[in-house]
């Protein structure tokens, strides 16, 4: 067994250097400082006396009113949740959601099980969009030059100068964010025609390159969707398919399907060749780090090996080009590519080479070439269903930028997105010079600041709409609450300008004409519409398959580009798990969500390998200035093992200067460097001073004990019980608990857990967990009940990663219970470790005695920062905790009680298996978390917990946790098993 020789480590040593206190730890919320508390004896006495007097004076409780409806709507029963199917859409992606509303207020977002793209799971972004809805800093009224006005005046004035511009044939330009909504796109087109407008769309994470690559490779721009569940071998080239996108939900479900060792299907194998350290890389069986500029060469080398050494048939022209390709630089890389080649040739038709959407056109073309060699089209890659994609990059808006520069535009309308934040500052002055600027947005953001006519948009949860993330999949958006502020929908405003009525009617009309008519349904349209709203999704029959014949001629071009490898430091910019591309920067839940790999909150950082840092004399938290032709940016250094030498990676979407207090002054705006996502030969300068990075890993360290057990598939087959570790016989001082009814328990499959952190946000939203701000995170006071521990393993230059969700283990012999002086934490008859807030006096003994370090203490009244209307979004079933209270995971006891009561009312004594779903389990895209009754031998959780892979964390303490972890199994290639360490 190799298990003993494995060394796990959590944080590179460089992180643990002492951190000098600096004033740069800016954060927007909870500017509370516990050292400011100065109270003299005299004032203490005064306060004491006053409070005594008040106490004796206040005999009566405050007057409280009950205000019933006058006419109660049928659907609303006070206290009872109603779910609405809707859609969460960003960029060209969309996923089906169910919005849980209580008394007309959305309080939780869950996945829609009927929706093929979410299959019941929901991403961190989708769930956190609830924060956006209730954000007190949302724009509330339409304004003209910053002065609040009413809609009537706003619409009249804008309508007047728009008609004037149309009459005089002046230039009207419309710049929108990308939407997949067929109805809205249609409306944009109508508006374009009616007013002589030119419509551009822009997203920093555009589909421009992926479209260009498809155009060059196949002569069309149909981007097929992939079925990871059909792939045995997956090779990712900078494709972070498990990363911060909405689509990751689908990919995670499909990818983990063949990794749970439960089906007869062989376990798949994932190779990742990448420049950053992505979540996909963290889940890889084999990972190779490469500079961005070297990837093209690597891809061509792989093609060469396939064609020359494995005799995969190809055209002569292609052979000629590949002959010229030089061999990989290192023997490790050669071995790595040989292993891939041997795997994929054995799995023709069930292998996939997947290149990131933001990679160069040439690299993507080579990817398409490889896939056509491997016959992936028609099997792993769908030929009939295509994902939505648009020309929405910097290349597509180039004509607009030229016009901006030459000040030719008369009316400039921006809808959604945040162009001023993404564009270089020089455009700011040009936009200011435009006679009429119209801005429709959710927040008073950078673009709104320099626009004259600014109007608030309704949030997606307040809106009607639709989305078509892939061909034939139509998803509906329906409002779940009346608009909280005086806002309108994009569609309503456009229709007003077009004088065509109401958006909701328009949406219905369009669906009747374009969707209903295609379905040959016998039901009336009204019935169809009701049913579509109920399900949230309508599937149209598949279209004709497209042909994907690779045009070999372009390979030559790709080869020529690959020869131009660059030297020097390279920078790669990735979307962020917290802000995506900046749009979620005002979202506190997401800002405080640790990045799954770096574990950094409230910041973007320059990640570089220890070797690169050493080479340039940099240390953790040093400030660094990066300079490109168009600007400079200042960011702290973060030492990230496993990156290629000479590569710096960072995330976009930080350094917002407007929008909301939370968004401001968090990190730096990387877009100031210019429009690309890759930079070569970047200038940099070390600055004086340091910038403190608030990481969540470090304060919760479990002192290097082997908590995550793992083995390779081969080892597991030889020793299926490898996870059972030897320890002396355990004897308890306490009496055993007897569980007559239910005995709640959970299993977490570490093989399925990808570390996406969706469960963390689900738990935050469900349990009213407060955000605490950067300053408190630096002190280790984050409040997440569920955290993801990330451990590195193996060689420090190319570590493997394991993620472990860590939450209250609900121990049978709970160490916390025996030390509580006030019996605030007790054991229930159903195996729950209960936390009674109103009894807790805050001694924190329990937290001290907890070996899992999962208890969280309210050092401040974090909920006191709530501003109207944030309190509307709190879950009414869970107490909002105050200062001085200990809290922790409850196994969603409020859900347990609700389900039990539901069953009791039906006359059932027990809760049937599968009825009780915790919030984390519900959100998990890979279904790694299973909850249920351990007393029921037929429940899924009892079966799973008896698997040979099952083990308890720190079992030797005899705490008897209710959570069983299923050990991680990797599937390495036999050729590479022992080589990874040599990669150094």
């Amino acid at each position, binding site marked *: 067994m190799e298990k003993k020789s494995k060394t796990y480590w959590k944080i590179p040593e460089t992180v643990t250097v002492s951190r000098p206190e600096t004033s740069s730890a800016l954060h927007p919320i909870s500017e509370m400082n516990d050292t400011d508390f100065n109270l003299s004896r005299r004032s203490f006495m005064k306060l004491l006396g006053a409070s005594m007097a008040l106490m004796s004076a206040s005999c009566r409780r405050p007057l409280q009113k009950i205000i019933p*409806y006058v006419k109660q709507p049928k659907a609303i029963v006070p206290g009872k949740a109603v779910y609405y199917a809707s859609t969460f859409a960003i960029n060209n992606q969309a996923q089906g959601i169910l919005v849980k509303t209580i008394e007309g207020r959305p309080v939780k977002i869950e996945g829609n099980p009927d929706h093929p793209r979410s299959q019941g799971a929901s991403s961190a972004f989708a769930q956190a969009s609830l924060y956006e809805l209730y954000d007190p800093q949302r724009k509330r009224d339409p304004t003209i030059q910053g002065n609040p006005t009413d809609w009537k005046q706003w619409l009249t004035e804008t309508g007047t100068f728009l008609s004037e511009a149309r009459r005089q044939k002046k230039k009207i330009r419309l710049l929108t964010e990308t939407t997949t909504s067929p109805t809205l796109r249609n409306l944009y087109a109508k508006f374009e025609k009616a007013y002589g407008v030119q419509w551009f769309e822009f997203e920093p994470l555009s589909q421009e390159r992926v479209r260009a690559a498809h155009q060059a490779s196949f002569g069309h721009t149909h981007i097929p969707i992939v079925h990871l569940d059909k792939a045995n071998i997956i090779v990712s080239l900078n494709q972070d398919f498990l990363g911060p996108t909405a689509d990751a939900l689908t990919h995670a479900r499909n990818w983990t399907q063949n990794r749970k060792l439960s089906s007869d299907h062989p376990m798949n194998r994932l190779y990742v060749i990448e420049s950053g350290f992505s979540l996909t890389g963290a889940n890889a069986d084999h990972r190779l780090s490469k500079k961005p500029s070297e990837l093209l060469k690597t891809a061509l080398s792989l093609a060469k090996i396939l064609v020359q050494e494995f005799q995969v048939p190809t055209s002569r022209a292609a052979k000629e080009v590949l002959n010229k390709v030089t061999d990989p630089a290192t023997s490790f890389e050669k071995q790595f590519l040989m292993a891939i080649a041997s795997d994929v040739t054995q799995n023709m038709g069930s292998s996939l080479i997947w290149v990131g959407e933001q990679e160069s056109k040439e690299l993507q073309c080579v990817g398409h070439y490889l896939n056509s060699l491997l016959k992936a089209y028609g099997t792993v890659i769908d030929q009939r269903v295509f994902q939505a994609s648009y020309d929405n990059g910097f290349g597509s808006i180039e004509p607009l930028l030229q016009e901006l520069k030459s000040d030719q535009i008369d009316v400039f309308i921006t809808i959604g997105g945040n162009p001023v934040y993404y564009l270089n500052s020089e455009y700011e002055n040009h936009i200011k010079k435009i006679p009429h600027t119209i801005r429709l947005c959710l927040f008073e953001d950078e673009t709104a600041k320099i626009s004259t006519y600014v109007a608030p948009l309704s949030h997606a949860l307040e809106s009607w709409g639709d989305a078509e993330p892939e061909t034939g999949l139509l998803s509906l958006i329906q409002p779940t609450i009346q608009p909280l502020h005086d806002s309108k929908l994009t569609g309503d405003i456009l229709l007003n300008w077009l004088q065509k009525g109401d958006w909701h009617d328009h949406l219905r009309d369009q669906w009747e004409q374009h969707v209903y008519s295609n379905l040959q349904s016998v039901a009336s349209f009204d019935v169809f519409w009701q049913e579509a709203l109920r399900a949230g999704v309508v599937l149209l029959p598949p279209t004709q398959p497209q042909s994907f014949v690779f045009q070999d001629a372009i390979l030559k071009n790709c080869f020529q580009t690959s020869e131009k490898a660059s030297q020097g430091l390279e920078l790669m910019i990735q979307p962020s798990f917290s802000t995506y591309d900046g749009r979620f920067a005002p979202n506190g839940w997401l800002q405080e969500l640790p990045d799954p790999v770096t574990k950094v909150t409230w910041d973007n950082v320059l990640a570089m390998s220890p070797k690169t840092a050493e080479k340039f004399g940099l240390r953790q938290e040093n400030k660094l200035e990066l300079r490109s032709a168009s600007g400079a940016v200042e960011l702290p250094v973060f030492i990230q093992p496993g990156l290629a030498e000479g590569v710096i990676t960072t995330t976009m979407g930080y350094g917002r200067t407007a929008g909301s207090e939370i968004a401001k002054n968090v990190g730096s705006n990387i877009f100031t460097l210019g429009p690309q996502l890759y930079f070569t030969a970047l200038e940099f300068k070390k600055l004086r001073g340091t910038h403190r990075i608030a990481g969540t890993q470090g304060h919760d360290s479990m002192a290097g004990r082997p908590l995550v057990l793992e083995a390779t598939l081969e080892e597991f087959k030889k020793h299926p019980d490898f996870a059972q570790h030897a320890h002396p016989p355990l004897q308890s001082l306490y009496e055993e608990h007897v569980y007559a009814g239910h005995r709640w328990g959970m299993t977490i499959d570490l093989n399925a857990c990808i570390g996406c952190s969706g469960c963390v946000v689900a738990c935050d939203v469900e349990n009213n967990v407060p955000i605490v701000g950067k300053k408190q995170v630096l002190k280790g006071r984050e409040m997440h009940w569920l955290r993801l521990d990330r451990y590195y393993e193996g060689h420090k230059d190319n570590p493997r990663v394991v993620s472990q969700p860590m939450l209250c283990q609900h121990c049978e012999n709970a160490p916390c219970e025996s030390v509580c002086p006030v019996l605030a934490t007790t054991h229930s008859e159903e195996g729950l470790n209960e936390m009674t807030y109103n009894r807790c006096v805050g001694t924190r003994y329990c937290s001290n005695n907890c070996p899992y370090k999962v208890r969280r203490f309210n050092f401040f009244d974090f909920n006191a920062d709530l501003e109207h209307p944030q309190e509307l979004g709190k879950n009414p079933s869970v107490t909002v905790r105050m200062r001085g209270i200990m809290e922790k995971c409850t196994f969603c006891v409020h859900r347990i009680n609700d389900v039990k009561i539901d069953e009791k009312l039906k006359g059932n004594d027990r809760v049937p298996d599968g009825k009780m779903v915790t919030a984390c389990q519900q959100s998990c895209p890979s279904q790694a978390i299973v909850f249920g009754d351990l007393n029921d031998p037929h429940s899924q959780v009892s079966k799973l917990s008896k698997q040979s892979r099952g083990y308890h964390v720190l079992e030797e303490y005899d705490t008897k946790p209710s959570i069983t972890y299923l050990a991680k199994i990797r599937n390495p290639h036999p050729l590479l098993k022992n080589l990874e360490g040599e990669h150094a």
Partner: protein
Amino acid sequence: MSTLGKKLDRLLIKVVVPLVIAGALVGLMLGYVVFYSNQFTDTGYRPQQPIAFSHRLHSGDLKISCFYCHSAAEKTATATVPPTQVCMNCHSVVKRDSPEIKKVIQSFEANKPIEWIRVHKLSDFVQFKHQVHIQAGVSCFECHGPVDQMDVIRQEKPLSMGWCLDCHRKKNILTQPSRLEDVIERASKDETFYEEIKGGLKKHQGTPWVQEHQRKKGSTNCSSCHY
């Protein structure tokens, strides 16, 4: 001053004053424990409601079932105060000229809800569920007192945790059948029957309908109510 005087002074400062202070503190604490319990602060709370609605009339004399107005009590956690519409089911015809009913009609016509004053209130950290108690056969009267005899609704029971547990800790005490409505119907018509319910129906011990509905012990887990 004499030495005795000095000694007395010292005694006064060193013994009597601290004793008095300590006594006062102990008194305050005891007072707090005794007089700040729900028994003293909450029971008997009887605020004046915006409309002089009489439970005695509706529930007692007219024998309208509790669930006619508090319709969600059987199904959800909250019993709910009826929407004006429910009042109007009868009062669109009945006693339209009464000044109190005029307030109801006004609320209905102006679409302006009646702002009742809350009487029974638990702390925010307690999660009480009506439906499950009704399912278990607990009578409305057990917690709300003889509502059918109240002209102005008042809090009868302390609704404190100790009071809840008094009931939850008892096992197999005899109580009403789960079809509570039957019992209420009967109790509201039959005074002696009502008294019997109040007394725990000891007399009915052993009778078949009581055996069928013997109550299980209520949960005493903290997390049944606090989360």
